[in-house]
């Protein structure tokens, strides 16, 4: 089974327990305004150009047969209309300022690459994580990869928004879900993520009923969901769902803004939380649930 991935990150320390490798798949039906991997939203390949790494050497201009790159007043201009995503400019860029995001790979090939770091997983009680993008948007590929990993005895995490309603079908091969819970208000959820909240909650319920376990990962975005009632709703959700082992509050970071620029998109920038705000929101959660909660 072939899937589309962007990269495999080795030595991943924040996507589940221990030392892990994380497979980032390409394509996500959600359009979260703060997405930290905007290059993984589109399911097709995309050309990324990082202007801050570009030294205006002009190799890309000479290489591209379709006139995709030019420099105007020293500024790197990318014309994506004629880009055929051949990747030649990426190959010729001396400064890693150009990246072609997206590669087709067999699940078995991914497994082979993941197994390289098996000694590190074993010694640290780590394993592998499938993230993205939305892994459930490539359900069959994700399932096969999880099955292959479990057959090798690897610890598996699935980082998902719960989209698509089929997360529970994978319980047998997922040791731990990293369940990204973004917003508890249905209207705001629809506005900020582009999809309905209810099917996601149903999916969580089904996973819970099927005996799955998860870390509930809650990005807290200033001006979007940094409200006491949202934090309270997170706590209440944890009280209702025994599958939730830990609540991870995830602070907003701006990584997505530069990456969105690199693919020619715009992403809104949000402010950062202060330490006082973080302390407060954590206390709102811990006041209402006995489930462990923490900032990561």
């Amino acid at each position: 089974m072939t899937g589309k991935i962007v990269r495999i990150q080795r030595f991943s320390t924040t996507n589940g327990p221990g030392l892990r490798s994380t497979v980032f798949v390409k394509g996500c039906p959600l359009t979260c305004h703060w997405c930290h991997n905007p290059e993984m939203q589109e399911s097709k390949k995309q050309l990324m150009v990082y202007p801050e790494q570009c030294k205006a050497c002009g190799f890309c201009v000479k290489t591209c047969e379709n006139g995709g790159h030019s420099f105007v007043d020293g500024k790197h201009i990318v014309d994506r209309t004629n880009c055929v995503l051949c990747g030649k400019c990426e190959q010729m860029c001396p400064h890693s300022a150009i990246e072609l995001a997206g590669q087709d790979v067999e699940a078995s090939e991914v497994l082979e690459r993941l197994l390289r770091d098996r000694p590190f997983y074993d010694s640290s009680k780590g394993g592998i994580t499938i993230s993205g993008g939305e892994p459930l948007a490539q359900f069959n590929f994700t399932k096969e990869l999880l099955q292959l990993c479990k057959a090798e005895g690897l610890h598996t995490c699935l980082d998902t928004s719960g989209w698509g309603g089929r997360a529970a079908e994978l319980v047998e091969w997922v040791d731990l879900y990293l369940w990204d819970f973004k917003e508890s208000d249905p209207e705001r959820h629809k506005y900020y993520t582009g999809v309905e909240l209810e099917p996601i909650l149903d999916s969580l319920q089904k996973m819970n009923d099927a005996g799955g376990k998860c870390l509930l990962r809650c990005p807290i975005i200033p001006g979007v969901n940094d409200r006491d009632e949202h934090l309270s709703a997170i706590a209440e959700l944890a009280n209702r769902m025994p599958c939730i082992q830990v609540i991870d509050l995830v602070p907003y970071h701006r990584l997505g803004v530069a990456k969105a620029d690199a693919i020619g998109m715009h992403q809104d920038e949000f402010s950062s939380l202060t330490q006082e705000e973080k302390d407060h929101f954590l206390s709102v959660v811990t006041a209402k649930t006995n489930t462990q909660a923490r900032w990561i």
Partner: protein
Amino acid sequence: MDVQKARERLFAKDETFGYIDRERAIDEFLAKGNVPENQGERYVAALEYMMTQLSPLIIGDDLILGRMAEGPLPYELEYVPGNGFSHVGNPFPPTGGRDGGHMNLNYASLLENGLGGIAAKMEANAKTDTQKKYASLARRAAEAVRGYAARYADEAEKTGRDRAAKALRQVPYGPAYDMFSAVQSIWLVQMILSCATGGRDFAFSRLDVVLMPFYKKEEEDDILEILTALCLKCNEIGGLSSDLSDRMPIPCTSTNNYLMLGGKGAEHALPMSLLFLKAAHAVHLPQPIPAMRMSKDSPMEWKLACAKASQELDGQVAYYNDDVLIPNLIELGYPEEYALNYTMSGCNRVDYPGHRSADGYHNTVGLFLRTYHQEDVHDLDSLIEAFKVNMKWEAETFEGCQLFDPEEDMHFFLESMLLRGCVENVCDLENGGQDMQTVVHNLTGMATIGNSLAAIEKAVYIDKLLTFDELRDLVKNNFEGNPELHQLIRNRYPKYGNDIERVDRWTSIAANIMVDAVRQMNDGRYDRLHIPSLYSLFFHHELGEMIGATPDGRLAGEAISESQSPTYGTDKEGITALLQSVSQLPHNKIGCGGLNVRIEKKLPDEMVVALVDTYFALGGMNMCLTVLNRDTLLAAMEHPEEYQTLCVRIVGYSEVFVRLPDYMKQELLDRTAVAV
């Protein structure tokens, strides 16, 4: 003891000052005339005079005593290569002819026998006239130090320091009798050697094991204070910058005090190993430099303490793998006891306690290039074969160690009293007195060579972009005329450090050729043991400046790769991939060598333990883990005044970041950081 105050005093120190008493004493000694011609006699006569002249200085709440008076120097100084500056006509020339120190001392013997007892052993062992004469010099030196200690004892009494006064009436001339006297004994000798007679990098060796007989659980608080005082002392001698940067007009610009802790044979000394790390945390300064021995059987308590130290001491910590090094050293020719008790005697030089090894750096990339451009080399196979031949020649004609001339005048150096063999043979280290002569061959730039071989294979044989000779001409011309191909090779061809089998294999082939060339010398033809090491310290810049472009896309004059590290910036797959690549090197054949790894932020200690354990289980030998955030380094470059205490550690040396020269600061920034 007010550690903070002591730290402030250190950072406020005027590094243009020198050891004023010392220079004055030398001046007077020379002016008095009747300076003996023989080095040994001159040395001892000067030592005797100096020991009566150095002020028994005590400052603040000094606990362990022994410090040098510093001030502006009115005396004429001359540069001593590798050793800072010294008085013109210095009666204490550096050992080894090149740099003083760089040895670890048999402090176990000092504590057991005292200098007086050691001198007595020499007197008993002396048979020939020369030996008798040498033993008499040792006796005079011991007595001279005894006199200095007595003057310190008087001063201690005056300031109400009864414990120090009592100790200094006994040590270092006599045996130590408790933890305080033991540490006091060691410090006074360490300071005299580093500052008065003047050398740098006298390593403490395994002090946890050496001091363990004096350990009492109920006295842990007191012991911690004593060790903290010792750790502070280590920062008082020498400047806080190294000979990379500003020079202090004193002997030992940057004396490093290496401290080997833990490992096999130190299991019983675990409380002392842990207390030393606690003291290092309390002091949080570049010195001493802890090096931590580890094996798969080490207790988890030790592993976790090491993980914490390696992350919180601004990375002033290196790990050594007992499971690899001990068998290696035995196979190389170390007696088992020495291998079990291995320690280090400078930078990254593995050694046994009470020994000085010679060492030097091979310009192996230069040799590889000369081979590559040889007329009879016309393909990869002939390149490899010719490199093997040339590398053998390089190793065998190495100038890393002078031969001892038995006809030479008798030498005397105080440190010889603490070196194995010199006491038994009643013969100075400079006359070949040590029980074993070893030479460490530092083999440099192996990633540059490995990447070059892999690039030749890909460009010529896999991609068939050009012929062997065409690529060679291009390299010879510094890639001029074909910038596209240069860019392709330099930036897109696979590089060592990314767990790519083909490239790692070539790097391993290169490393094996270099290492085997040294090892084959241990076949009985030579009177000394030759130890291969994959290590470059900071010479990768200097060596790179001397040579032309290499087939991996490196341009003429650019730095070669450092130690066991990939070429900076080329390992892009994360630390686990890096460690997988490095573990392919012939760690089972070498005696030294190191890998620098910088991570961007602190990890849970358990994760660091897993990382180190796994790397060592894969066969890795040494790792220096540094937690350094790029933003912090950039901020320190912009506002040095706010980062006066930011310390950084690279295999072999430890520095205050803001005092490094700019190119070294930049290198730390360029060093591949592993985002976590």
